[in-house]
């Protein structure tokens, strides 16, 4: 569904992403892991067309993504790390606006809003101002905003930062439901246990490059542990080292 081929992006002298390639299939959740500054967010930004790659290409359903108004952008939904919502507006006003960006209007838009809010369990709070929401509710609304136009591919950039276990669990259930509906999900996070629970495949990046791309058992087999399996965290530290990152 989503193919990333040889992406490269630099900022001045810094090469943020260098020859990155991987793919996400329909009904699959791929975890994108890496220490700070590894190039995860830059990669996601290029996939979402927020940044223009210097080299390489992003293929959506086999077709190259290009240009601001490329209709294939409708197939991608972005759930940014920031709570990208207007606090002073109601959830309905927020979703009407974000839906209209994808040319949704009228009954179609209202139906999409109802479905997205139902999925994240916020239907009862549709008319409330976002500033009255708790942190966990805002995270769920952030997810709903990315789902409004029913994208085939969902890019999730650390979608559970700062939420309580209940909200995190609710988001996981949402993602598992979406996966079962055939959506392709790319999920970046620093929480290893989330990837262990959700991911079908794991891509590990460091210094702008992909250093591993495998299933959880495949990655665990890279690290020998006496009397059992290695944890994902130990695998991650083995791959990326223990030195602190800025």
């Amino acid at each position, binding site marked *: 569904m989503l193919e990333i081929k040889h992406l490269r992006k630099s*900022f001045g002298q810094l090469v943020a992403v260098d020859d990155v390639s991987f793919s996400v299939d329909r009904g699959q959740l791929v975890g994108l892991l890496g220490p700070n500054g590894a190039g995860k*967010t*830059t990669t996601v*930004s290029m996939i*979402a*067309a*927020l*940044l*223009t790659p210097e080299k390489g290409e992003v293929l959506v359903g086999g077709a190259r993504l290009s240009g*601001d*108004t*490329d*209709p294939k*952008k*409708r197939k*991608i939904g*972005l759930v*940014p*790390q*920031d*709570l*990208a*919502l*207007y606090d*002073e*507006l109601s959830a309905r*006003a927020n979703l*009407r*606006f*974000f839906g*209209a*960006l*994808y*040319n*949704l*209007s009228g009954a179609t838009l209202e139906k999409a809003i109802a479905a997205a809010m139902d999925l994240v369990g916020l239907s009862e709070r549709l008319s409330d101002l976002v500033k009255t929401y708790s942190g966990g509710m805002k995270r769920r609304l952030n997810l709903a*905003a990315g789902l409004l136009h029913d994208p085939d591919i969902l890019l999730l950039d650390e979608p559970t930062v700062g939420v309580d276990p209940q909200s995190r669990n609710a988001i996981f259930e949402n993602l598992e439901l979406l996966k079962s509906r055939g959506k392709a999900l790319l999920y970046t996070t620093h929480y290893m246990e989330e990837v262990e629970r959700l991911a079908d495949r794991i891509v590990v990046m460091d210094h702008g490059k992909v250093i591993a791309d495998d299933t959880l058992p495949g990655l665990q087999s890279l690290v020998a542990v006496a009397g059992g399996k290695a944890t994902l965290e130990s695998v991650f530290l083995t791959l990326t080292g223990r030195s602190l990152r800025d």
Partner: protein
Amino acid sequence: MALIPLFAMVVKDLQLFFSDKRSVIVSFVVPIAIASFFGSIFSGPSRNSEPAKIAVAVIDQDGSPISKGIVAGVQADKNFKVTTPTEGEARDAVRRGRLAAAVIVPKGFGEAAGNAFFGNGEKPPLNVVFDPSRSTEKAMVSGIMTQHVMEAVSKEMFGGAQGRAVIERTLPQIQGSTMPDDQKRALMEMLASVQRFYNQPATPGGQAGGAPRGITMPYTVHEEAMTAGSNIAYNGYAHSFGGMAIQFLLFAMANMGVEMLLERQRGLWKRLRSAPVSRLTLLAGKAASGTIVSLMILLVCFAFAMIVFSVRIQGSVLGFLAIAVACAMMASTFGLLVAALGNSPATARGITTLAVLMMVMLGGAWVPSFIFPAWLQQFTLAVPVRWAVDGLDAMTWRGIGLSGAVLPTVVLLGFTVAFSAVAATRFRWEEA
């Protein structure tokens, strides 16, 4: 251009603007309040009220007929509000700012002034104590005092006892002087004529020949304000409401630019840029909502001025609307410029506040630009506010027709195009 996203952006921005009560108050109520205040100052007195008077004190330490004449003249002057305290009280009142000036007529002033009027006597000082922060009023006091002193001295010298005594004393002095004969003869003939004038029988009013004695102002001034028509008085509220509305719509649009930077900080532009919406649509949506808000500020301010202060569009209504729309578009694209050039919301807010204040000051929004030096007046042609203010003045109290709106409208649209071009090329489109 996709209309659904464009319309959605406009609706969203208007919802956000009106959800912020502080913004609404600052944009609509504050300009009306300030413009009302400035308008009351610059409108001058109304038809039914007296002009503001200059508070002065007069201290007569002389007590002569001339000094009494000066005091009477000053007290009768419509430009002054006169008190007669002691010198100490007057100096204290000036120092405290309660009086603009105090005029002290020193002892011996009348006699010395009379001697100096015809002859070579030493000119006595008239002491004026003034508040240095009110130098304009001091200049007016000095000018008006000249009139009253000349009238009082000449009246006494051409008809009073002091004048007769001076002439009787002066004639022998001239006779024995070393002055050239022709000059001596001419001066003595003039004084002799004055003496004959004194000897004519006085009228019941006390004046020889029925005419007032002494030197009086030899002219009167007919003043005519050039406004939209001979029966239409100047309405200072028209200028103040135009100026303040422009100032606050610029503030509102600068704030819109800062809000765009804040939206970027909060990740909202990631959502906007990830959607299949063109850059043109995104900027046009912002520009359209900004234009609507700006136009509302301008029209609400003028509507208030029309209802409460009887401001009228004496020129072309179409011209007024054209300038208003062009001004709103200019301000809106100024907001885009702020968003394009600003590095962070905090620095952008500080710099744009300064920029807006400079533009409105130089553009004549606070005080008319004609008070500026000539070079500065030329410079302000590069300031869009100048064109907006002059254009609105032309369409309101100056009463100039549609032709007067063409140039300001074209220039304001030119600024709109320039601001848009810079904003589009300098806007940071990539979201890392």
